[in-house]
């Protein structure tokens, strides 16, 4: 009933023909062919059996009416019991089989979608909101699997309809026509119901979405709301949104709740018509009273399947839509894949960028003609304005994206020829934007090397100068962290993320503003410890701190996607180019001169 009627569309959505959708759906079902055969047999059996219990009642009535006594009724009663119980057993077995197949299919679809997510290009995650991707894995897979249930019911109802109808015709064709006269009403009601439900459900769902979004944001931004004493106003705003949902829910209920009573009304007209016309037939000796009894008993077995067939048709349509959404996400094009014969080997750490061009959006060049050779063990600092393309270089080395033109070689071999998983495991990237998993601090540090000993862990903790604050946590290393490391400051999270990478002992280390939120003193301590560690590793450091930059072997200055300068601190300052300009704007205020300069501001 609660079908999604309006789905959001994404860039990767595509259209599939019904044939393609069905054949793919059946592929999920093929492992359960035996079960499916069982389900079909069950449906057929229950459809045929369904007409017998009422017929038994009719026969018994005839027997009694003829004054044959209860002994004559005995076989009918027994048959009634056996057939009804048989029907119940079939339904139980059907229910169990459908549940098993449905749950297996849901699981299969979810894991396949999940695997496809793990393989999708980074670009996919850059452009698609998490909530929407999640909804496809959870809601749509559920909807798709529910289809199995609905299709089963649909077929079952259809069969039941046909058998009941045929039986009615055999027993009395005149009364059958009266019964059939209700069909158009049923269809009109079912059709209207579908339309109205779709309309009102859309509004209602949108309103619910609003409530959820508002709720989520209020909880996420709770500290701001508290800091500004804004609770009362937030409550006021939420009341309005919450009330809107109630309003749409009421509207929808009015429409949706109308349909069954209406059907009930139609069924009453049916009872009315059958008894009246039936009586007339009896008086004309064209039917016996027991026939009316049978028709009254069969009426619901005719009417309800009819209503369901009419309304399930739309549910099946939305199941198709869900299928399309799931397959779209599974099939979303993947650009970055392993080569046919991937190279797996231990790398040394020589990096060569040859005429590298890159763009995320066609026409907007992020990197232009980058040529750079980095020797094993060398330490390179990359500086430049925001948007100069520094982080892009890091992402390209990790093969998060494939370069647009040119080539990046590691130990003389193009990046794309390596097994990308093997390659990534030998490159360590510490990003500015830290992501920690919920779990303990220890779990997080060990993330890249699950079998690391406690000594190894302690060693990297010392390198990143994190021992002190970890000790101060309620349970030390075993302190549970909240979502995304909630409960730690930005600097502390960076230190843990740094330790996590160091533990994997990478050949190439990329630090992308890795310690931006750590204070200068701690950073200096890290730097000192790191110097030893980096001795025989290649490192690329994207930094904003003077200390770090000065410590590197070579400084690369990027501007609008191009390397504009290269050299060491002193020579670059002397040159008076972009570096010296950057120094003036970004780095200088970490020097003593700047401190006296800005003192004037406060001196007033």
């Amino acid at each position, binding site marked *: 009933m609660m079908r999604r009627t309006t789905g959001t569309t994404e860039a990767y959505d595509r259209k599939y023909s019904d044939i393609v959708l069905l054949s793919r759906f059946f592929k999920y079902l093929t492992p359960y062919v035996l079960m499916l055969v069982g389900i079909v047999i069950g449906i057929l059996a229950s459809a045929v059996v369904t007409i017998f219990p009422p017929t038994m009642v009719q026969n018994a009535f*005839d027997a*009694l009416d*003829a004054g044959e*006594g*209860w002994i004559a*009724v005995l076989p009918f*009663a027994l048959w*009634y019991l056996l057939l009804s119980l048989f029907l119940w057993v079939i339904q139980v077995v059907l229910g169990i089989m459908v549940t*098993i197949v449905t*749950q297996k299919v849901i*699981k299969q679809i*979810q894991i396949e979608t*999940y695997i496809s*997510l*793990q393989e999708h290009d*980074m670009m996919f995650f850059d452009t698609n909101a*998490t909530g929407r991707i*999640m909804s496809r894995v*959870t809601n749509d897979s559920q909807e798709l699997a529910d289809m199995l249930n609905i299709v089963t019911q649909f077929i079952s109802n259809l069969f039941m309809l046909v058998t009941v109808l045929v039986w009615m015709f055999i027993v009395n064709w005149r009364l059958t026509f009266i019964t059939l006269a209700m069909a158009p009403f049923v269809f009109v009601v079912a059709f209207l119901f579908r339309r109205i439900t779709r309309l009102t459900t859309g509004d209602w769902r949108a309103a619910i979405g609003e*409530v959820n979004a508002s709720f989520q944001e209020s909880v996420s931004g709770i500290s*701001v709301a508290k*800091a*500004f*004493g804004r609770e009362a106003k937030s*409550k006021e705003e*939420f009341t309005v949104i*919450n009330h809107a949902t109630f309003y749409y829910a009421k509207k929808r209920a009015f429409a949706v*709740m109308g349909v069954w*009573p209406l059907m009930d009304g139609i069924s*009453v007209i049916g*009872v009315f018509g059958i*008894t*009246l016309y039936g009586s007339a037939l009896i*008086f*004309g*000796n*064209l039917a016996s*009273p027991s026939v*009316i*009894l049978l028709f*009254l008993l069969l009426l619901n077995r005719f009417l309800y399947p009819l209503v369901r067939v009419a309304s399930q048709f739309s549910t099946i349509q939305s199941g198709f839509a869900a299928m399309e959404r799931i397959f779209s996400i599974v099939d979303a094009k993947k650009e970055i894949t392993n080569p046919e014969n991937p190279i797996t080997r231990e790398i040394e750490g020589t990096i060569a960028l040859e005429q590298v061009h890159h763009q995320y959006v066609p026409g907007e060049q992020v990197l232009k003609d980058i040529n750079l050779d980095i020797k094993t063990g060398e330490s390179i600092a990359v500086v430049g304005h925001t948007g100069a393309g520094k982080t892009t270089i890091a992402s390209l080395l990790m093969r*998060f994206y494939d370069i647009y033109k040119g080539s990046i070689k590691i130990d003389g071999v193009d990046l794309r020829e390596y097994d990308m998983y093997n390659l*990534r495991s030998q490159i360590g*990237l510490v*990003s500015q934007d830290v992501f920690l998993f919920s779990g303990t601090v220890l779990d997080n540090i060990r993330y*890249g090397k699950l079998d690391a000993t406690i000594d190894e862990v302690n060693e990297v903790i010392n390198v990143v100068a994190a021992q*002190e*604050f970890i000790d*101060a946590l309620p349970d030390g290393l075993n302190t549970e962290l*909240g979502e995304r490391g909630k409960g730690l400051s930005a600097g*502390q999270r960076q230190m843990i993320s740094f330790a996590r990478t160091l533990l994997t002992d990478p050949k190439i280390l990329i630090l992308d503003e890795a310690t931006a939120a750590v*204070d200068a*003193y*701690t950073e200096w301590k890290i730097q000192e410890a790191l110097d030893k560690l980096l001795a025989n590793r290649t490192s690329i450091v994207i930094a904003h701190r003077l200390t770090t930059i000065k410590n590197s072997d070579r400084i690369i200055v990027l501007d609008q996607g191009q390397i504009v300068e290269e050299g060491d601190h002193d020579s670059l300052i002397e040159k008076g180019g972009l570096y010296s300009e950057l120094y003036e704007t*970004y780095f200088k205020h970490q020097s*003593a001169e*700047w*401190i006296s300069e800005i003192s004037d501001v*406060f001196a*007033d």
Partner: protein
Amino acid sequence: MGYKIWFVKHLLKEKLLLIILITFLVIFIGTVSITPLFIGDIFEELVKETGQVTKYLLSNGFHTIQINSSSFKAILITALFIGVAGIIRAAADFIQSYVDEVLAHKVTKNVTAEFYNDLLEKSQEFHDRVRIGDVMARATYDTRQMNIFIAPGIKFLFEASFTLIFSVSLMLWISPKLTLLLAAALPFYIIAIYDYNRKLRPISKAQMEQNGLLNSRLQESITGIRVIRGFVKEKEEINQFDIETDKLRDINTKRGIISARYYAVAITVLIIALSFLWGSFEVTAGNLALDELITYVFLMMTLMMPTWQVGWTLTQFQIGMAAAKRIFEMKEREEYVPESSSPIDWAGSQGTILFKDVSFSYNGESTRKKALNNINLEVPGGSTVAIIGNPGSGKSTLMKLLMRLYDPSDGTININGTNIKEMALSNLREHIGVIEQEVFLFSKSIRDNIAFGKPDATQEEIEHFAELAQAHEFIMGFENGYDTVVGERGVTLSGGQKQRIAIARALLIDPSILILDDASSAIDAETERKIQTAIANVLKNRTTFIITHRLATIKNADLIMVLRNGLLIDSGKHDELILRNIDYRRLFERFSELPPMQIKEEK
């Protein structure tokens, strides 16, 4: 108060709806139960008319229908009764179904609002610990489950009980003897329902928990995709997800099987067959009329629906109550910052602050190291205070205590001579402006974000403070200016831009105390100078706390607090500290990379 009482209270709040619901339910069930009586009447007439001989004739020819007028009239009248009863029934059904839905949505709305309001008042400690995904699961999925329990659950519950009462009374009236059968079956029904319930309860709970777990795992693996890639953990993540989905599949399958095997329905079938048999016996014996037997059988059949409804409602009852429990439990956790019963108003515009023996440890645990230990300091009103220290030294915590996001475990904080515990929370926080380390902006327009603390601010005010915070220029650079919605359609703000909006937001409320927790180094020197100027101008004679790594700010502060692992190891002006405190000197050396000598010379 238990969660069940809480839930019932919410239901009882809507007395009018409940009364309408029950009234129309009674009408609905009454008309449903009465229809078999009319059907019985019709058969009485028919049997009377056709006598004992009703050999079934399958005739293809069209015969003239002869109507016995008196019998037909009687049948017509009875059929009309069926029709009228049917219309009343349909109308009553509609009203009761609709009212039940309204009741459900009303209760959901009230529960959601109550939950929301409660969460806003919960302490920051609570929010630090709780997962947003968990809160959201309770606010959305769980409230929905409660909703479904009310509509159609409660309707079903009443329907089933009323149908039972009506039908059974009618059955008793027709044949008390036959009804004995039903009474005999009662223990079996109870066993069936009890058994069903017992099996289902743990499964419902497990299902809800596993569902939540799967969702948060999925969310984490999408938001953390870069880390997963970077560490090549795809296989592990897939394996883990595989295990979790397997668990959920098994739970769901088990639940489906239990639902399918609900055997109370089979008992009803058995009773119908036995009633028919016994009824035939009674008819043969002349104790029961044939039409009465038909009425009886039709009445028995009206019991099929309630049998099924009871099963369904029980399932949903389990789920709905588990959901109510989850919401209630989170709501009931007594984690509020206590409000003073007779609050003292903020006095004076400047904030003279006195920290006296202030200690604090998170989660109220004193066994571990304290986050803050015995802080004593007086901050004169209007001074600029720089707080420095290593990560985890307690800088941010101290500021949270000042805003009363937490209360100190020991000691007191006084502002202008008043203990902050004695002020009203809202009054205190109104006077404190804060610029957070990680700026959180709401996905509203930039205008609404700046005016967050003062929703009735004029456009001039907003622009004025945006200009002061050096934000006006880049805001005007957006296509929609101040109406640009944060985070929408690719409008992502850089760290520096966010910080400047946060500064404007904090300045707009004209605070007496300003807290600037500064983690971003993303602002270039020129902008920084402008912001510094802005802050210096606007906050003259106001107390400002700055947590920073910026040397210029530190050096120019009126007071520097040097924290280390929760201890205030020293405080004073730069000139004093550089002379007397080795730690500070070392810190400053590293900051500025100057040999100690040079700094001394400079001085």
